[in-house]
């Protein structure tokens, strides 16, 4: 997958823990871990919206297109 999720970078910038963020956006810590480790196959707009709201950022800050990555 050439789409990378830079969630851990944003979480470090905002100094928020995984458990805390998961609770605030309404997903399980396991699902947040799947997202953080680039194992997710898709992300719902509602999840992305919640992430951007809680981390006070734009979708582009979380998602990155990296050709050739993850092959």
């Amino acid at each position: 997958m050439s789409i990378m999720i830079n969630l851990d970078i944003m979480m470090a910038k905002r100094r928020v823990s995984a458990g805390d963020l998961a609770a605030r956006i309404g997903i399980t810590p396991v699902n947040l871990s799947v997202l953080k480790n680039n194992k997710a196959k898709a992300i719902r707009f509602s999840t992305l919206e919640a992430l951007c709201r809680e981390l006070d950022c734009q979708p582009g800050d979380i998602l990155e297109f990296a050709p050739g990555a993850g092959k």
Partner: protein
Amino acid sequence: MWNDAKSVVLSLVSTWIAIVAVIAFAVWLPVAPKWFPYQESILFRTETLAIVLPSLYGCCAAALVALICLHGLLKSIQAGEIFTLANVRRLRTISWCSFAIAGILVATCIFRIWTPAMILIALAAGFFFLLMRVMKNIIDAARLIKDENDYTI
């Protein structure tokens, strides 16, 4: 009250009965000619036994493999694991076993050893092969959809 769990148990018991029936048939085969002393059945005449016995044993082996896969499939359904790669493999094996049974019986017919029952079983096995292929394709597609759904956050 009847429910899904009891239905799976009934299917499991039926599978076990079928396994026992196939084994019993395989054990009975060598003594089968004695049951037809006047050689009224073409299957158990002295001159046809050399072809009939291996082909019927081949069918029994394929049927046993298919039944064991069916048992595994039912066990995984009981465990709530339906759309898995293992089940797709089991369905594929069952379909090829059905094809093998149809093929063996058709090959036996080439030697001009045939009965209406053999033709019917060959046709049924061939049709079952098709059905199982379609079922396998459906489960495989459902597995991919489930996989995608599970990893959509």
